[in-house]
């Protein structure tokens, strides 16, 4: 290969070296030593809390920092602290513990062949559980497949979640959907789709509709770091910005999109939150493993939306501790101990320590609570399994397969159902 820089005087006139193709790589691969020392983590309480009507241009700093409330000693500090009472925090802890126990049981149920598939939330419990508490009845979430905390924290029956996971005779979705693609309209939880990013722009449309009708409800869109690369992410931001839709646009940055590290989707952008700035949307980054910070930021964004001040983009900085799904083995692409090195720790332990520091919780009560939570999950599981699991017991009827494609079954589907003999 010729060094063209040395050939500046040649007739072709190109004085530059050959172009090089850039493909971002994570800092560490399997076998390497996990190292997050290059991830700047601001001190808890150090990021300012602006007024909700502050303009996006002057909020620029918040898209490049991380809002945190809980410090290393488990104290709630700074301007974002104080949005929740002790009782609410205890409830939040229980929600996260329940989601974690639910995940563990369903993960096991998948291994036992009771369902075909599961995806857990390990490490990301705070984002959906705390966010849910900042909403009001009637608001609508447009979740991805990794926000079951919205259901748990919203009081949706675990039995119904499990019935869906088992595709049994009591499955609210009649066995039509893969496990965990829940839908719970009455609980403000939009039908989950397997197609990534689609719901992000739908949440904006829902919020536009609320504004068109002069309603007081707001919407929340959810997306992962990887899916921000989908074109619907950009469409959502354009529409939210153009129509000042009352929507909270949530990006859960758990560092990984299956095997792909977040740099592949983020490219040269400093942060995912920074993408909001180009659309004139106030953008905040928050410690996704800090229940108090998540709630405070969600509440701030919800107030903006309710006061008709427009959309807010929130990036939750967290880490996907578990495998992507029951079909994934992360040891093939990242160090096994990477989650232990994650500097923002574990959301359950951090909230537990905070409550102990406040004197309203203890190790003993936590252990006892763990047992109670597990009992509740197991009891729900037993109840669900009475209605069957994927390969045994009660099943949705084969006739249900033909229902609900249209409001009324058209003649061609009736013919097909007859042909199927059901």
């Amino acid at each position, binding site marked *: 290969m010729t060094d063209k820089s040395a050939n500046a005087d040649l007739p072709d006139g190109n004085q530059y070296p050959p172009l090089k193709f850039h493909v971002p790589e994570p800092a560490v691969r399997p076998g390497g030593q996990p190292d997050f020392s290059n991830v700047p983590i601001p001190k808890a309480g150090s990021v300012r809390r602006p007024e909700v009507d502050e303009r996006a241009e002057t909020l620029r700093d918040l898209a490049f920092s991380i809002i945190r409330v809980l410090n290393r000693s488990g104290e709630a500090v700074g301007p974002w602290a104080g949005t929740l009472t002790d009782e609410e925090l205890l409830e939040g802890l229980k929600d996260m513990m329940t989601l974690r126990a639910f995940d563990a049981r369903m993960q096991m149920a998948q291994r036992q062949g009771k369902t075909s598939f599961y995806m857990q939330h390990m490490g990301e419990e705070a984002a959906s559980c705390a966010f849910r508490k900042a909403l009001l009845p009637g608001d609508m979430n447009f979740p991805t497949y990794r926000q079951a905390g919205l259901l748990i924290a919203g009081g949706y029956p675990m039995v119904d979640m499990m019935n869906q996971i088992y595709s049994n005779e009591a499955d609210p979705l009649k066995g039509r959907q893969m496990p965990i693609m829940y*839908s719970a309209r009455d609980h403000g939880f939009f*039908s989950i*789709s397997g197609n990534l990013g689609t719901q992000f722009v739908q949440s904006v449309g*829902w919020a536009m509709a609320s504004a068109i009708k002069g309603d007081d409800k707001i*919407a929340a869109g959810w997306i992962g770091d990887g899916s921000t690369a989908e*074109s619907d992410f950009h469409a959502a931001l354009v529409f939210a910005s153009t129509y000042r839709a009352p929507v909270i646009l949530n990006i859960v940055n758990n560092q990984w999109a299956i095997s792909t590290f977040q740099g592949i989707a983020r490219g040269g952008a400093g942060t995912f939150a920074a993408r909001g700035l180009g659309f004139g949307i106030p953008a905040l980054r928050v410690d996704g493993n800090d229940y108090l910070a998540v709630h405070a930021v969600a509440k701030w964004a919800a107030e903006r939306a309710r006061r008709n001040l427009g959309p807010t983009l929130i990036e939750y900085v967290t880490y996907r501790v578990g495998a992507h799904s029951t079909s994934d083995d992360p040891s093939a692409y990242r160090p096994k101990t990477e989650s232990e090195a994650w500097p923002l720790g574990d959301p359950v332990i951090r909230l537990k320590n905070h409550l102990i520091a406040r004197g309203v919780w203890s190790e003993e009560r936590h252990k006892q609570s763990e047992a109670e939570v597990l009992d509740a999950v197991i009891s729900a599981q037993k109840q669900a399994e009475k209605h069957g699991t994927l390969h045994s017991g009660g099943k949705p009827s084969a006739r249900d397969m033909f229902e609900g494609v249209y409001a009324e079954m058209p003649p061609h589907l009736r013919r097909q159902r007859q042909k199927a003999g059901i």
Partner: protein
Amino acid sequence: MIEAVRSAMDVSMERDGDVVVFGEDVGYFGGVFRATQGLQQKYGTHRCFDAPISESGIVGAAIGMAAYGLKPCIEVQFADYVYPAFDQIVSEAARIRYRSNGQFTAPIVIRMPSGGGIFGGQTHSQSPEALFTHVSGLKVVIPSNPYDAKGLLISSIEDPDPVIFFEPKRLYNGPFDGHHDRPITPWSKHELGDVPEGHFTVPLGKAVVRREGSALTVLAYGTMVYVAQAAAEDTGIDAEVIDLRSLVPLDLETITTSVKKTGRCIIVHEATLTSGFGAELAALVQEQCFYHLEAPIARVTGWDTPYPHAQEWDYFPGPARVGQAMIEALEEQP
């Protein structure tokens, strides 16, 4: 036909406060084909408004609005530009009712000018209906005249399911039979150009016989209805011409009644041949009318090429090609 389309939206917006209309250039300007002219002035910017140039955004937002409870009637400027929204239409709008067991529905209408015959070249002439008839959960409608355009559009807006509504832009200002060398007649001189003022509907899933005949059956929709009628007149063949009007749901009964009577069937569409909707029609006729058929089912369609510009009339399946197929179908002996 433009006025009929506009009137359908006007009537629907008047009757139902949940009907909203938006798309590119749809608001203040009233649409590049004037289909939404005056609606923003009459109903305000919250009922009829301009959208960013983002088809997936337009359809995706409409789905969210429908989940809230509105009934969006949205426009994609040309059917040729629907592809960025394909994911939202196929993966979302078509399936939301099914996958949520009816908790959420998508009662939206996606209006799209379609079809050729206007020197629109590759990206202003396409007829992508087969891409949507293949998707369970969608309804697909194509009117051929102002009366149907209004009645079918009102039905589509009132329908609880997502409807893909193709408007053959060649028919916007008058019927067109493919005789491009002859003067164009406006809708005012056509009986189906007479459209009632107020609310009326034309049901989805019902075809109509446009020309009764006994020699053979022609299945057509959109512009091809007039081409087929012209071919019958030009050849003197007593063809029965059926205007399907809606492809999903399909009026199979009207089709089979006719083919069982005539024993011969020709399918005509502008869209390309391979895997076009004609293939589905041919299969259905073969299944339902096999013992009545006296000739192979013939298809006269656009060629399997992108829609060309200079070769417009070599591509467009005009009355000569349709007439030739009629003659050949009659020459076949069982």
